[in-house]
């Protein structure tokens, strides 16, 4: 079982990207479960629930985000034991701290699960300048723990060299992809993202 944590700010196109990924995975004949963390943020996206071949599991992190990582690890381990899907995708809220969650997995998850952990952050190119000016702490926190960054909505606003440099600085060592997930097929999205996971692993090895 491979595990993907997917973060990104509200409106970044994270849900669309996840939707494509889920279908891209199932089109490969693989099984996938989606864990949705809705505490402290905008709530379950009805568009993703109940779709054929995709098991959707809510994540209850309590009323406070300090409990999220522990609940997530427990939920992932339970899923692996009970369903053992090929992939588990976790949709994190826009306020979740990717780097903290990674640290909890590093400390408390079995080593083989940590080795199968992938982290992806979605950056909203259409609003990048506005977001980074106003929410730099949140953006920094989201990108810091990602080993893949998807610069999304590049059809609306292609990234400038300065923006690319900014993103590289905020997520050092991450594989950076540029796309417009909404206009790509699930297979195209999955191919790009899964290649990034492989090349990211090769780089770290």
């Amino acid at each position, binding site marked *: 079982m491979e595990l993907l944590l997917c973060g990104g700010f509200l409106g970044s196109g994270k849900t669309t990207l996840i939707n494509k990924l889920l279908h891209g995975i199932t089109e490969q004949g693989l099984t996938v479960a989606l864990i949705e963390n809705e505490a402290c943020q905008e*709530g379950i996206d009805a568009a993703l629930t109940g779709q054929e071949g995709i098991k959707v599991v809510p994540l*209850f*992190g309590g*009323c406070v985000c*300090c409990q999220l990582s522990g609940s997530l690890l*427990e939920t992932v381990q339970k899923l692996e034991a009970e369903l053992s899907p090929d992939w588990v995708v976790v949709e994190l809220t*826009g306020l979740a701290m990717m780097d*903290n969650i990674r640290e909890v997995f590093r400390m408390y998850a079995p080593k083989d699960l940590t080795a199968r952990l992938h982290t992806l952050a979605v950056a909203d190119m259409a609003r990048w300048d506005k977001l980074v000016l106003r*929410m730099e702490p949140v953006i920094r926190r989201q990108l810091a723990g990602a080993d893949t960054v998807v610069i999304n909505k590049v059809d609306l606003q292609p990234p400038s060299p300065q923006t690319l440099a900014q993103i590289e600085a905020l997520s050092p060592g991450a594989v950076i992809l540029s796309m417009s997930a909404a206009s790509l097929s699930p297979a195209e999205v999955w191919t790009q993202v899964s290649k990034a996971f492989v090349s990211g692993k090769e780089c770290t090895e």
Partner: protein
Amino acid sequence: MNSFEKVQHCMDVLPIKDRHDIPVYPMMLIYPGRVAGFTQQDICEDTDKWLEALEITFQKVGYPDLCQGNGPQDVIFLHGLEAMRPGHEVGPDESFQLHETCRMEVEDYEDIAKNGRLQWYNRYLCTIQHPPMTPEQLGQRWMQVGMNSAKIGQYLGSHGVVPIHGSASAPVFDALSMTRSFQEFVYDLYDEPDLVKAAIKRGTSEVIGQVLGNLEHSPIKRASLFAMRSDANSISPEIFEEFSWPALKEMIESFHKAGVQTVLHADGNWLPMLPKLLELPKGSTLVELDGVTDIHKAYDILKGWLAIRGDVPATLMAFSTPDEVSAYCEDLIQMALNGSGGLVLGSGCEIPLNCKLENLQAMMDSVRK
């Protein structure tokens, strides 16, 4: 020292001679239900049931020095967000969830600045209840909160346990961030800064009056302020200094002048903000850290001036061994013993539902060796 003396000694940031002088406070809102074998629905709908669960938990691990003054039934209400309740919107033994959506418009800042925040907030509170309440029903709900609080205070007092506060609120900055929703609120800080500031100013004076009014007849002269959106993971230090800090400082200084100490529940990373807290009067505030702020660095900054509570992490309580919990607590205890006191040994925010009882026991025992 008894628990009351220990807590006061700690809040006054006086040196301590041994570990027994350190108050212990595992914040346990939802966990006692798991220990007692009650569902989350049981304890969230009935404060008596929560108190029963609390007593069962204390019988197993011992009585702490401090305990929260509200049960889950009222904490869900007091959060001021739409809630997904156990047995209703989530399973009967799942913890309650807060559902943040944008529930106010830009124009509401003007309304708050002009007519006050309380009138707006009470209207808002009516709309987010399940089912929505009339103003009369809301008034009755507030009375129920008061009665439950008195009942909890009586129970704790009979066991020598100190309620952490006599009244609680959120700083207006943080409350607006949640009712407006985080993203919209942060946009407003840039697009409509004067409107936001005016609403914070008017609302802050109301919160001060309300908290001090609540404490007039309370034996516990402490007020909790839940600052959940003022940390460096949510906003920059510059935004903190411009929007959040002036009102927070005004509140704490006003409480201090009235003889009330503040319990600042500081969620997230407060490290860049902590030097500002040195502008507060000495001993005015207990800063509650949730494990995200580096507690050793925080202690160094605030040492001898303000007390801190923290910060045994929820994940440590859930996944580690009693020895590891003991070692973590010992590190905090030595920090306070070798420093200048001013430590409440506490959980980093709340004890999680998946906490191992033996880990909680280890935490409680660490100050009782």
